[in-house]
Structure formats: C-alpha cells, structure tokens
C-alpha cells in the first residue's frame, strides 16, 4: 500500500537525476552538423589533440590544464593531510573542552564559501595585509596573488575541515585499551602511533583524502578569484564552455573526462587502504571503527 508512494519519486528521480546526466553524456558524443545531429568522439579527441604536428603530449593546452588541476589538487590534499592529522589527533586525544574547540574549528566552515575565498584576496594582493606585515618587519614583500600558490592556499583554507573531521571522529572513537595493550607489550610511543593508532585511523584518512581531493580538483571559484590567467583548472574550462563559449558538446565531454579522473584518483586512494598485515598475520578490523 505504501508502495504507491515510490512511483512519483521514481519519475522525479528519472527527470532530475538520471536525465540530466544522460543529457551530458549525449552532448559529449554528438555534434550539430548541417544535416542534423551526428554521433562523434570529436570532442574527446579534441581534448587530447596537439595544436600542431608533433606537439609534446604534456604541452598540449587541455592536457596541461588537466595535469595542473590534478597537481594542485594533490598538493592541496597532501598539505591538508599534513596540517590536519596532528590537529585531529590533538583534538581527539588531549582536550577536555573538545566540543567547544571543535565548535571553533567549524564556525568558519559555516560562512559563505565565496566570502572565505574573497578574504584571501585582501591578504595576498600586492598592497595587501601580508605584504604590509612583511614590510613592517623589514622583510621582502611577496607577490602571491594570481599564482598557483595562492590557489593552493585557498584550497587548503576552504577544505581543511573536511580532512580534520573524519580523522577526528575515528581517533575519538578508538578503543583506548588497544593502545594500552600495545604499551603493555613494550611498544614505545612512536611504535604505538605508527603500528597501532595510524593504521587504525586509516578509514578516516581515506575519507579525508577523498573529501578534500574531490572539491579541489573540480573547483573553478578559487582559481577564478585567486589564480592567474584564463585557463587555470579544468573546472574553469568547463565553466567557460558552458557560460561564455556556449559549446555544450565540448563542455560535456570535459565533464565526463573530469568524472573519469575522479574515479581514477578514488581508485588510487583506495589502493593506499590495502590492509597492512600485522607481524603475526592478524589483521585489524577496520570497518568496525566507523
């Protein structure tokens, strides 16, 4: 009897979730020719094609943008991990006012994403706050705005909480008696961390890496406001095709390429999660931690 409720939703889902993705797929493999719509892979080959005979692969304009997107996203993800893991660890292990501190770290996340990015404009520009502080201290000024460094800073600033939260959750819920057992068995602090705590927090690390990499590789806002040049990241290319150029076929093909890149990187991240064998052959049940 309740089953009839599902039919309107299936219709809804088909129109608003399935159909839009199929339209993107359709646009990516078709082109408008004088005699109607034709089926073609031209937009994909165009993405990888050289501008002139014999152009080196990585110098081709779209390839260069794609590799740059991946590189900046990977760098941001690594920086987030390096900064975020100790933070999550400190929050989980050392603090009695945990919920208040967590609250403090979450508040900026609730502010509009664009405003958070815009804030760095004020700080990094040539006459900005950073250079004012540097020259006040008698140090040489830096010209960071509209560089890749600025884009990475913007990404780290915006996505750091996505790294901290899942790692924090896993570390907080970790059973302390396992750590005590390791200590009782004679492991020192470093060993306890490297062989017990860190492997057991892997599920949090994996979700953290995923949750930072995804928005970092697809963003066009941060690169648009803080980065330089016209072709910055693959997100900017897609935005340009849809908003300014109006070539939806090529834009759709790039969206598909973006999805493939993400699926590929997710696969790579999953590889890290290979269960490390304990010396005695026992494996730690990781799934139960979540």
């Amino acid at each position: 009897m309740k089953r009839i409720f599902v039919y309107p939703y299936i219709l809804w889902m088909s129109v608003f979730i399935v159909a839009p993705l199929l339209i993107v797929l359709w646009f990516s493999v078709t082109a408008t020719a004088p005699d109607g719509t034709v089926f073609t892979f031209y937009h994909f080959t165009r993405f990888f094609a050289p501008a002139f005979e014999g152009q080196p692969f990585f110098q081709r304009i779209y390839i260069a943008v794609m590799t740059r997107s991946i590189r900046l996203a990977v760098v941001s993800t690594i920086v987030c991990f390096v900064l975020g893991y100790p933070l999550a660890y400190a929050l989980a292990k050392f603090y009695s006012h945990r919920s208040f501190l967590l609250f403090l770290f979450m508040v900026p996340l609730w502010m509009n994403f664009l405003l958070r990015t815009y804030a760095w404009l004020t700080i990094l520009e040539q006459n900005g706050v950073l250079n004012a502080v540097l020259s006040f201290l008698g140090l040489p000024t830096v010209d960071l705005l509209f560089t890749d460094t600025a884009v990475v800073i913007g990404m780290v600033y915006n996505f750091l909480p996505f790294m901290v939260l899942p790692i924090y959750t896993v570390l907080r819920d970790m059973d302390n008696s396992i750590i005590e057992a390791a200590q009782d068995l004679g492991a020192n602090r470093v060993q306890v961390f490297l062989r017990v705590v860190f492997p057991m927090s892997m599920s949090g690390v994996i979700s953290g890496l995923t949750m930072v990499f995804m928005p970092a590789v697809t963003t066009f806002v941060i690169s648009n406001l803080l980065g330089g040049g016209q072709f910055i990241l693959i997100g900017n290319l897609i935005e340009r095709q849809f908003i300014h150029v109006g070539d939806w076929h090529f834009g759709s093909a790039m969206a598909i390429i973006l999805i493939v890149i993400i699926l590929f990187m997710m696969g790579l991240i999953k590889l890290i999660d290979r269960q490390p064998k304990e010396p005695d052959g026992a494996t730690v049940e990781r799934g139960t931690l979540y």
Partner: protein
Amino acid sequence: MIKKAYTVYMGLMLFFLYAPIAVLMIFSFNYSPSRNYWGGFSLRWYRDLFNDPHIPQALFNTLVIAVLSSLIATIIGTIAAMGINSLGRKTKSIIIGVTNLPVFNPEIVTGVSLMLLFVFGIRVLGFGEMGFATLLMAHVSFNVSYVILSVMPRLRRLDGNLFEAAMDLGAPPMRAFVQVVLPAIRPGIITGALLAFTLSVDDFIVSFFTIGPGVNNLSTLIFSMARRGINPRINALSTIIFIVVMILLYIINRRDSKKRKEHLA
C-alpha cells in the same frame, strides 16, 4: 610537554582559520577603501551595503529559495523514503544508488547537467526561462537526496507492522501516519530539513549554472562582485554574516548541551 606542543599548534591553526575573517571584519570599519591604510573608524560601508540596489534582493532570494526548497524537498523526500522503505531489497538498492548520485557527484557536474536539463526542457515545452523557478527546482532536486538519506535510517528502525496495526485498530491511513509513523521518524525529518536549508543557503556552484541572467542570490552576487576585485561592501556583508552564524551556532550548541544534561539528569 607534548600537550604544550599541541596547544601551540592548535593556536596556530585557529589563527590560520580566523585571521582572514578578522582582517575582513577590521577593514569593514575602515573609512578608507584601501587595505594598507587606516582612514579612521567608519560605518560608511554598512550604510552603502543597505543602500545597495542588488544586495537586499539577493539576500531575499537566497532566504526564499532556502525556505521553499527545504520545505518542498522535505515533503517529497519523506514520502519517497516511505515508499522506498517498502520495496524489496534489489529495487531498493538501485533506487538508493541513484538517489546517492547528487551527493557523490562533483557539484560542477550536477550544475551543468541541471543547466542542460532546464535549457532542454524550456526548448521542448516552448515556454519559460532560466531564473528564479529553475533555481528553485535545482535546489529542490539536490536537497531531496539529502532528506531521503536522513529519513531512511529512522524508517528502517521503525517496525513496519506498526502502521498496519494502527489501521487494524481502526485508524484511517492519514491518522495512522500522523500519530504513529511521523513521531517515530521526526528526528530524521528535522535533520534532513536543516541539512537541506544549510546546503541551499551555502550553495554557489549549482546556483551559478541554473540561475539565468538578471537574477541573483547572495552567492552569485558575491561572486560577480569579488571578480571585479576588492569591494569594502563585501567586508561589511561578511562581518554581518559571520556574527549571525556565530550567534545561531552558539544558540544551537547551547540547546544541544542543555538537552544532553537534562537527558543525563
């Protein structure tokens, strides 16, 4: 010793997170539009903000879209979740899989795909244009998924026979729903509605692709303003938004911890 190191580290990270916001807030009171010169305390940017021809309208659009889209998504999502819950395992997992797509898809893909859908739809129907209506539909469509994902776990825990039992005892279906099912799944519905509201307020990317020319919500307006460079009105706006967010979160946090204490007592 280690604890001290962590305290210092945490302080540095808090500085990293708050310094940019603090800079925005301080310069929102600077009479001079410059960022390296203090021209004296002034509220002129706040006055400009309220007299701006576009900002109040954009704020209004953001709030109306957030309220309407979360309301509509909550209704659609709750009904759909009940339907999905009554399905067999195989069909259920297919439908949940599709429902998950907007959650896991990159936002830019959701944005452009909905844009193409609306353009296509307008062409087929022969009327309508990109604007407020398409923006609302886009927000409802990604919010529905989040509502379903919040309500489903509650429904799963609910004994399916309760609804039938209520009807066997003579309750008409509507009453059985309102008095038996609804109270049990209410926390899930509220979580879903709040999540939908926040996602809608904060959304930029999907809005950007589905809003159409001439209409703005706060996010798209800030984007077009920030693109043209520094604008002290944005500083004033950030300060107001930050303070409102801080107060709201503080109230929610207080209420939660109070509830927890009462629960323990």
